[in-house]
């Protein structure tokens, strides 16, 4: 466990602040990108270029009447939306945004990430159950099943990265990619991780948890006001977080491609700014990927999701892990 310094607090504060903002920015980005994909204009009346749209949305949601189903589990109904938000915020603690720019370096950071990230789905499941609505219940059940099925390939994909580094610290993983990004060394793992991350964040084509056309709103059918707003924002936070994880584990974290070979020594300030920009740029790209996929691809069916998880991704990820381990063993 690394020492908690002032930098840690600064990084943590900035990261949390940015994450909260990034959710709003992602909402705006999603609307604009969707409008672009669909030959539309998108929001442009509120503020310059419609930039204040997310603020108007959130403000309106806060001021809306809050409805709690009388026959539901009222306590769980209230705390359920908090869970995804909190878990999303917790993940930033171990992600390195630059050389030395991280809140804390837990020596089992990977385990921490996996543990916290998977907690978010409990909010969805609880919301589905506490709402006392059949649509919500179906959504919650789907979420639970999906969570169980995609944790494993996700874990195996991360494990296949860990064997390269030999450490469970996220900072070490980021450092190890200075020359070679793991996407080049372990492409299968990267693809599995991306698919599983899509499933974990409940985005199309895995958004059958909310599946507007089948389940009306899925788990959040009965949620109104800011409770719905929390789910709404948490979804985008998870998109951002999952993009960050993709970048951290497979796409070289804050490093430029093969940076170790050609990047000269820079002053700490310049290096810090460069690192953070590179990281943010990569994250933005994956956020865009999330949005792009959402607005183009149809949704899976429940049994197809299960089939994909259990009979495709899981075996492939295990085989990938064993093969990589064997290669590394014989090379070493």
């Amino acid at each position, binding site marked *: 466990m690394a020492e908690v310094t002032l930098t840690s607090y600064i990084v943590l504060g900035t990261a949390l602040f940015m994450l909260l903002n990034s959710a709003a920015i992602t909402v705006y980005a999603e609307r604009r990108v969707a409008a672009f994909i669909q*030959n539309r204009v998108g929001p442009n009346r509120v503020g310059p270029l419609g930039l204040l749209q997310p603020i108007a949305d959130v403000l309106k949601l806060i001021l809306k009447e809050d409805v709690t189903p009388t026959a539901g589990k009222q306590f769980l109904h209230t705390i359920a939306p908090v869970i995804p938000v909190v878990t999303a915020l917790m993940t930033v603690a171990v992600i390195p945004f630059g050389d030395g720019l991280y809140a804390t370096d837990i020596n089992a950071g990977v385990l921490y990430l996996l543990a916290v990230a998977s907690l978010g789905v409990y909010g969805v499941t609880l919301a589905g159950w506490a709402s006392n609505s059949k649509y919500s219940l179906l959504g919650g059940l789907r979420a639970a099943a999906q969570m169980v099925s995609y944790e494993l390939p996700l874990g195996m994909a991360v494990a296949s990265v860990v064997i390269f580094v030999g450490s469970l610290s996220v900072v070490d993983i980021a450092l190890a990619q200075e020359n070679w990004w793991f996407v080049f060394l372990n492409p299968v793992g990267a693809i599995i991780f991306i698919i599983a991350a899509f499933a974990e964040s409940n985005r199309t084509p895995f958004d059958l948890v909310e*599946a507007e056309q089948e389940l009306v709103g899925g788990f959040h059918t009965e949620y109104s006001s800011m409770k719905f707003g929390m789910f709404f924002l948490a979804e985008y936070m998870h998109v951002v977080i999952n993009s960050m994880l993709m970048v951290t584990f497979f796409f070289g974290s804050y490093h430029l491609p093969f940076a170790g070979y050609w990047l000269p020594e820079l002053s700490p300030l310049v290096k810090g700014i460069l690192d953070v920009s590179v990281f943010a740029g990569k994250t933005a790209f994956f956020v865009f990927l999330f949005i792009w996929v959402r607005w183009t691809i149809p949704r899976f069916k429940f049994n197809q999701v299960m089939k994909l998880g259990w009979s495709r991704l899981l075996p492939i990820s295990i085989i990938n892990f064993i093969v990589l381990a064997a290669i590394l063993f014989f090379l070493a």
Partner: protein
Amino acid sequence: MKLTDIQSRVHSTFFTEHQKQLYQSLEDKHTTIEEYDDGDPLTTKMVLNMGPQHPATHGVLRLVLQLDGETIEKNKLDIGYLHRGVEKIAENKTYQEFMPYTDRMDYLSPYSNNVALCTAVEKIAGVPVPERAQYIRMIGCELARISSHLLWLGTMVMDAGAISFFIWTFKEREKIYDIMDRIAGHRFTVSHARIGGVANDITDEATGAIKEFMESFPGELKDYHKLLDRNRIFFDRNEGVGVLKTEDALQFGATGPTLRGSGFALDIRKVFPYLKYDDVEFKVPTRLEGDNLARYYVRMEEMHESIRIIKQCLAKLPRGPIRTDNAKQAYPSKDEVYYSMEGMIHDFMMTDTGICPPEGAECYHAVESPKGELGYYIQSDGTGHPWRLKINAPSFTNLQVLENILDGEMVADTVVIIGGVDPVLGEADK
């Protein structure tokens, strides 16, 4: 818990008797072949109400599904949420007055409905129709077919989860709306056909717009094919879903693309040609699989065929009058009405009494609307109002098929199957 307890747990606040009977009928479905074990908690059934207000039920269809997990064990459809009694209205209107109501039957392809009513009235009253009007009607009908199929495509893919697709197809629909605007003066509910012809001639501007659309649209269709034909998720969602075998399709009375997707090439345009359909060349796309994917291919190919038909119609479009020149059978032209006394009187008479088919005459005439066989049965009592006007609506028959193919599918499939069958509730509910 016994299955019969479903009904006791239903607490309805409106139309109590209706709800009770609906759930009773759900329970009664297939009860002869299924037996439930008393006292086994796992036999507790969840009954899911989809609709009448639901994003994917194409309006106000209500499905009552009895679920086992995500699988549908039994289902019952409840329709009539849009029933306003057009047949009753028709008995109180003249034939021409009833025209706007047909627009609002199948509101995705108003032109076909206008033509269906007109041809039926022309058949019973023996009104001749000039050739040019027939070609204009054909162009209108085929444009309506493309427009309807575009909306089907958009909503079906949207029900499967790809929302943008809907918007893309809507972009093309807007072009058809513009053409309709130029032909008929209204973008949506056109009411362009008249008994004995059409309301007004097709202008050069409109012809140009149609030609332009005919040039650009195949490219768009190609894009749709590119996006969907090799899309693994779309394939998996549709292949083998909602299978309707040929025998079942005939037994359940499926019609239109739903029947043709099940392997029976019944197309009224070929079987009982009306207008000038025997003068143009086109194929009747048919598939054997009977699943949702087959219906998708059938409709996509129908759009290609429609383009072919429109092109031939434009090439063949003869010169001449657009409405029959007999003031007892059709409205006189507006020129005549404005500048001659007889024309004025005739216009007045047509509006007041309308066309009077012979007393006791009966006739049935069907057209191939985008959804299937759309037939009008008219019985006349010798006055300007029909004694009985029955609309054989394709959506109604297809919805009955839907009730039979949903059993055993999954909840996620329902929306796609509804999309594939493509009912329009305004038409089904009459």
